[in-house]
């Protein structure tokens, strides 16, 4: 049982699915000879050949559209966005064509669109984005965002097997920072639509996902020393949200802090706040509060990026405030 990184976990998941099912193929910019900008598909060309690892022109709309067409015909395409920021160029294709295909036309479109998201890497405004909010508003699409190596593997495999289109957000700050021992031989599949209690607690719940799971766990550790017991829920799937898990943790602790790396206005925290109002209002012993990025494009300088993004210390302070409410 070797330790593998989050990145290696994605790689393994993809690899296993391609071994298992010859309908699975990869397309994207520089996924072949180069093995992808972050090397997620390194070695795939050699193993699976040019007809299953396709280097494309710089055409995100065509990549997603062609994936959809292939999926209609029974294939299982996995499209890579070099950085997830470039999915914006396929916004129309993914939201209007792909996500509605089953509903309007009975067309199955089982594609996975994956790519590196997130900040903390000095990538500037166009290599650090968290695009989930723009796609969260799209019936027909699923969105997953693994925080652990296990889920990175389990969710890429589940996404590929899912009969609907899945946007798979892999956090580039976690790529080589997170390591985990995964059992070999055992098949790892993370069910889509199900959150995970990353840490049990009594006084307050943090609902979060992606890189912020780690910052929240760090914060929980610190708060524990102050005698504040924090439960951390890792959403894993963003669309559809696991309402049952969110409601359960709120009913348990009666306080909810939502933490996301994305900017505040229009971020996912709003939806979660609304759902808790609707489903567990009476259980709330304090306002639902948010720790998020500031509402600005993400700047490049470390001083600025660190200021804009939510940090462990912010989670600590916010949680302490809410616990004391």
């Amino acid at each position, binding site marked *: 049982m070797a330790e593998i990184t989050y990145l290696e976990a994605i790689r393994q998941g993809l690899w296993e699915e391609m071994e298992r099912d010859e309908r699975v*193929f990869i397309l994207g910019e520089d996924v072949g000879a180069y093995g992808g900008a972050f090397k997620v598909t390194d070695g795939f060309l050699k193993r699976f050949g040019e007809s299953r690892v396709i280097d494309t*022109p710089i055409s995100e709309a065509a990549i997603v559209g062609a994936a959809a067409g292939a999926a209609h015909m029974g294939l299982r395409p996995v499209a890579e966005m070099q950085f997830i920021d470039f999915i914006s160029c396929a916004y129309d294709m993914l939201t209007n064509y792909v996500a509605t295909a089953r509903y309007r036309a009975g067309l199955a479109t089982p594609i996975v669109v994956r790519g590196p998201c997130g900040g903390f890497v000095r990538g500037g405004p166009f290599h650090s984005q968290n695009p989930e909010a723009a796609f969260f508003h799209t019936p027909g699409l699923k969105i997953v965002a693994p925080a652990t190596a296990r889920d990175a593997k389990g969710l890429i495999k589940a996404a590929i097997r899912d009969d609907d289109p899945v946007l798979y957000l892999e956090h580039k700050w976690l790529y080589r920072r997170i390591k985990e021992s995964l059992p070999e031989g055992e098949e790892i599949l993370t069910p889509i639509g199900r959150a995970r209690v990353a840490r049990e607690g009594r006084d307050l719940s943090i609902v979060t996902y992606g890189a912020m799971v780690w910052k929240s766990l760090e914060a929980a550790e610190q708060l524990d020393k102050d005698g504040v017991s924090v439960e951390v829920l890792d959403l894993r799937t963003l669309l559809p949200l696991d309402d049952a898990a969110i409601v359960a943790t709120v009913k348990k602790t009666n306080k909810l802090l939502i933490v996301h790396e994305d900017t505040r206005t229009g971020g996912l925290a709003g939806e979660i706040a609304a759902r808790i109002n609707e489903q567990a209002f009476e259980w709330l012993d304090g306002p639902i509060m948010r720790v998020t990025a500031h509402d600005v494009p993400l700047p490049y300088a470390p001083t600025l990026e660190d200021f804009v993004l939510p940090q462990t210390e912010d989670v600590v302070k916010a949680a302490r405030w809410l616990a004391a409410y």
Partner: protein
Amino acid sequence: MTSRIVPATQPGHPAIPAEVERSQLLEIYYYLRLTRTLEERLTALYRQTKVIGGLFRSLGQEGESVASAYALERGRHRDLLSPLIRNLGSMLVMGATPLQILRQYMAKVEGPTRGRELNIHFNDLELGYVGQISHLGDMIPVMAGITLTFKLRREPRVGLVYIGDGGTSTGTFHEGLNFAAVQRCPLVVIGEYNHWAYSTPPAKQFAVTHLAEKAQGYGIPTVTVDGNDVLAVYAAAKHAVERARRGKGVHFIEVKTYRRKGHAEHDDQHYVPEDELERWAKENDPIDRYAKQLIENEWVEAAELTAMDQRIRDEVDRATDACVDEPLPAPETALGGVYADPADTEKLWFRLL
């Protein structure tokens, strides 16, 4: 890679063109007339406010739609096309029925999308057509992916996709066509130069004279053909389709035609130069030209066509009668099928009060 203009079929030429059977000539005529008769029926239903939403006519363009689709191999799991709103004729050739079309336009529960989508936005992947969405250009990448699959699986199948003179300005047209060209997908693209994109003339849409010039930027062969000459379109499409089937990649065919009705029925076409509509109607109607060609060349008898016209009217009458009074879909069916799983979207709380 150069563009050549295919000359219009010579009238008076006595022999039926090679590789076309007499029965096929009649079948093509059937689809042409069926398209027009069905659209006329839709216009009548539209005026009676039985069509829901807008109505988009292909009057004057039936020739290129029918003839290009007719060049495909039809049947279950054979060739596959993606039409635009003005390619009703292509859909009929592939096997969509007047009943389906009528139901769809009237949003009937038995219609092919059960009232979810409008006009000819629907598919039958087995029969070989995939419905467009409204966003112009998006079907080019999708058809690139479909035909890429044919190539990857080494199936001898071909795809065909239409794009309007206006639609060629979209980014997705460019990305999809380039993608397909690089991958040498078995795809035929029909560029419909029908002189208008809503009210916009070609000169405000692009700075080339022929759509075919655009193909040159993709490294694919191209041809410009008289779109109202049915057999010329058929010949060009047949050539391109069989070439694609032999693994030679994408082919672009420009058809010159004319949109004789407004963008949709509500459009009064005030922006159209005087006499232009009349001239095209009188001198260059694709069905009239084709019928004349069949008769003058003595390939068929005029009476055969007249009889067929009547059969088609009857067919459209029967289809109309069969569905015009059918119900619309039940409200709650709106919640099904957003995902494979869960099968139904939750009904909102205020509907349970």
